[in-house]
């Protein structure tokens, strides 16, 4: 049989400092990966899971209670007014949508860039994307005065004979967010099919066999199936990459296509996309750093992974910092008194506290990640990721509220203060997000087992001086 294989070219071993570090530590084999990852979804829920789940579920209940109170009483229960017509609702929306960008970045863009290390974190990041988009989708709906009419946003024939008005970026947003949710859901689910089959084949009870069997759709791992499957995944990644860029560009059009100083800027689309990737990567780190320890996944999500995500965070944070600087420059350079006022009001007006906190969290604190020691310290990266989450929320708050609260008419100037309902809804949405994520790691394969096994097998072959065979499924 050896005669059938072409003789591999013998490449000289790279020097030690250039050698690719292993994706999986401690020479863990494929069976160990299946057992470890499936085990998280198979055993009894550990105590830390309940300790995290119960408060999250409580916050989710708070979220629904706040929404019920809002819908039954009216928008007046929030702190917004005629001047600040968009406040926490849209801040939360943009914040969650931004969080929802890391999953596709990791799964699609890093996939196309052939970064095999993404396999350890892609599944959890995709799930996080979905849950963040669910949280995001709540806010535009409930901020409508009449949320029950939200279906008017979709082109559904109705007795009023009216259609959505497609000259408005708000209708583009409806299409962008819905498409993003559906495509992310399909990408996530299709990627999970082989792993669901693993869970099915390991199942010991009839109920688990039935549920995972239904979800796995009868996947057998046939090479004939893998061929179409790999092509479909590649194309989904190819489609998701422009999609993820378009979604936050279109979200930024909600602001940039208006005429308000502080919003009407051509820099907004790239600036928003960078910010989205920044916040999404931070949220991935916030979730995965504790989970790798709690689930004992240090050999799969290695320090190297955290290190690399830290580098992405640093790059995205620097882009966001650059955008802050350019915002200032654009305002000054425009010579428009309104633009200059909008910027100065941001930095030195009543919301200066938000602006400078945002700047410290988003532009300055990630610079620590230049240090290898910081990137490799779990505690430091975790704290930085929390700072970035806070900073990115504040960024949206600064963009939205400081641009609105100083109207062209000084008589309508106002200062937005959140009410308890505002705060409860934000905390509740965080609870909903965590609840969904905890359910996900409890019941579904949280690491892309099949992908990581394949990537490890290939990188293992490479480490032994065995180049990739030509051709290949994913070509």
């Amino acid at each position, binding site marked *: 049989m050896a005669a059938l294989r072409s003789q591999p070219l013998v490449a000289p071993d790279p020097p030690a400092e250039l050698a690719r570090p292993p994706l999986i530590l401690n020479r863990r*084999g494929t069976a160990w990966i299946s057992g470890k990852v499936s085990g998280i979804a198979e055993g009894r829920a550990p105590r830390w899971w309940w300790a995290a789940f119960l408060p999250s579920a409580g916050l989710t209940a708070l979220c629904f209670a706040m929404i019920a109170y809002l819908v039954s009483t009216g928008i007046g229960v929030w702190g917004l007014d005629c001047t600040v017509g968009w406040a926490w609702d849209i801040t939360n929306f943009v914040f969650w949508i931004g969080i929802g960008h890391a999953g596709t970045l990791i799964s699609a863009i890093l996939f196309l860039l052939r970064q095999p290390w993404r396999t350890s974190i892609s599944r959890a990041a995709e799930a996080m994307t979905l849950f963040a988009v669910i949280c995001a989708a709540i806010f535009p709906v409930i901020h409508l005065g009449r949320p029950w009419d939200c279906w008017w946003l979709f082109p559904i024939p109705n007795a009023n004979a009216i259609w959505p008005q497609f*000259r408005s970026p708000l209708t583009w947003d409806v*299409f962008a967010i819905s498409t993003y949710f559906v495509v992310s859901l399909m990408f996530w689910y299709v990627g999970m099919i082989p792993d669901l089959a693993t869970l099915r084949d390991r199942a010991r009870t009839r109920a688990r066999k039935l549920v995972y069997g239904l979800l796995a759709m009868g996947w057998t791992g046939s090479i004939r199936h893998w061929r*179409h499957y790999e*092509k479909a995944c590649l194309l989904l990644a190819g489609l*998701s990459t422009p999609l993820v860029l378009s979604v936050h560009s279109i979200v930024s059009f909600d602001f940039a296509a208006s005429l308000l100083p502080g919003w009407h800027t051509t820099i907004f689309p790239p600036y928003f996309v960078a910010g989205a990737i920044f916040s999404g990567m931070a949220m991935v780190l916030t979730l995965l750093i504790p989970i790798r320890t709690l689930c004992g996944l240090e050999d799969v999500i290695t320090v190297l992974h955290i290190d690399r995500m830290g580098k992405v965070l640093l790059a995205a944070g620097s882009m966001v910092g650059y955008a802050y600087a350019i915002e200032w420059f654009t305002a000054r350079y425009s010579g428009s008194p309104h633009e200059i006022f909008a910027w100065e009001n941001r930095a030195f007006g009543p919301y200066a506290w938000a602006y400078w906190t945002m700047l410290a969290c988003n532009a300055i604190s990630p610079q620590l990640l230049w240090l290898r020691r910081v990137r490799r310290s779990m505690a430091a990266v975790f704290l930085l990721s929390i700072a970035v989450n806070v900073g990115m929320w504040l960024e949206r708050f600064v963009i939205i509220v400081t641009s609105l609260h100083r109207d062209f008419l000084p008589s309508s100037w106002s200062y937005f203060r959140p009410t308890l309902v505002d705060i409860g809804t934000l905390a509740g949405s965080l609870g909903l997000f965590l609840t969904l994520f905890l359910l996900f790691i409890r019941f579904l394969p949280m690491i892309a087992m099949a992908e990581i096994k394949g990537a490890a097998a290939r990188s293992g072959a490479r480490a032994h001086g065995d180049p990739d065979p030509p051709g290949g*499924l994913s070509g």
Partner: protein
Amino acid sequence: MNAAPVLHGWLAEFATADQVQAAAGRVRQAGYTRWDVFAPWPIRGLDDAMGLRRSPVGWFVFAGGALGLAAGMAMVWFMNQHDYPLAVGGKPMFSTWFALPIAFELAILFGAMAAVLAMLALNRLPRWHHPLLQTPRFARATDDRFFLVIESADPQFAADRTRQFLESLECVHVEAVWEEGPCDT
């Protein structure tokens, strides 16, 4: 349901990807046509070794994307220009510029749906019952083992000779796979 079980084929188990890849080359050389390899992850180059053609999923995605783009443009034109033109902000009733975001999103949406549906249809999935899934040893096909099946439907299939042929390959184990009823759905 209670019809006598029929032989679905012979199942050979392999420990490594290299072994199953080498075996696949041998099976193909031997001239079998109804056979398949099962692996927990896609093995590079194995589809070439099996003589499989490129997957046509891409064409479906292209068609889906083109349809989505056209549908988006047509929808915006129909709703805002044709069926109920409403003047808003001095903008034209229709322009490809403001229809583009919608058309783009729909192109992505339809393309992605086409990718998933084409993948499922070409693979004949979902297919919850399969003789292999009734075989206990086959459970490791989604874990760490590699399998090669030559089906009894193959014109060259001969119960004993095929078994001996598989045993001559570098495999761990060979066994029969049975299926209920006379023919498969």
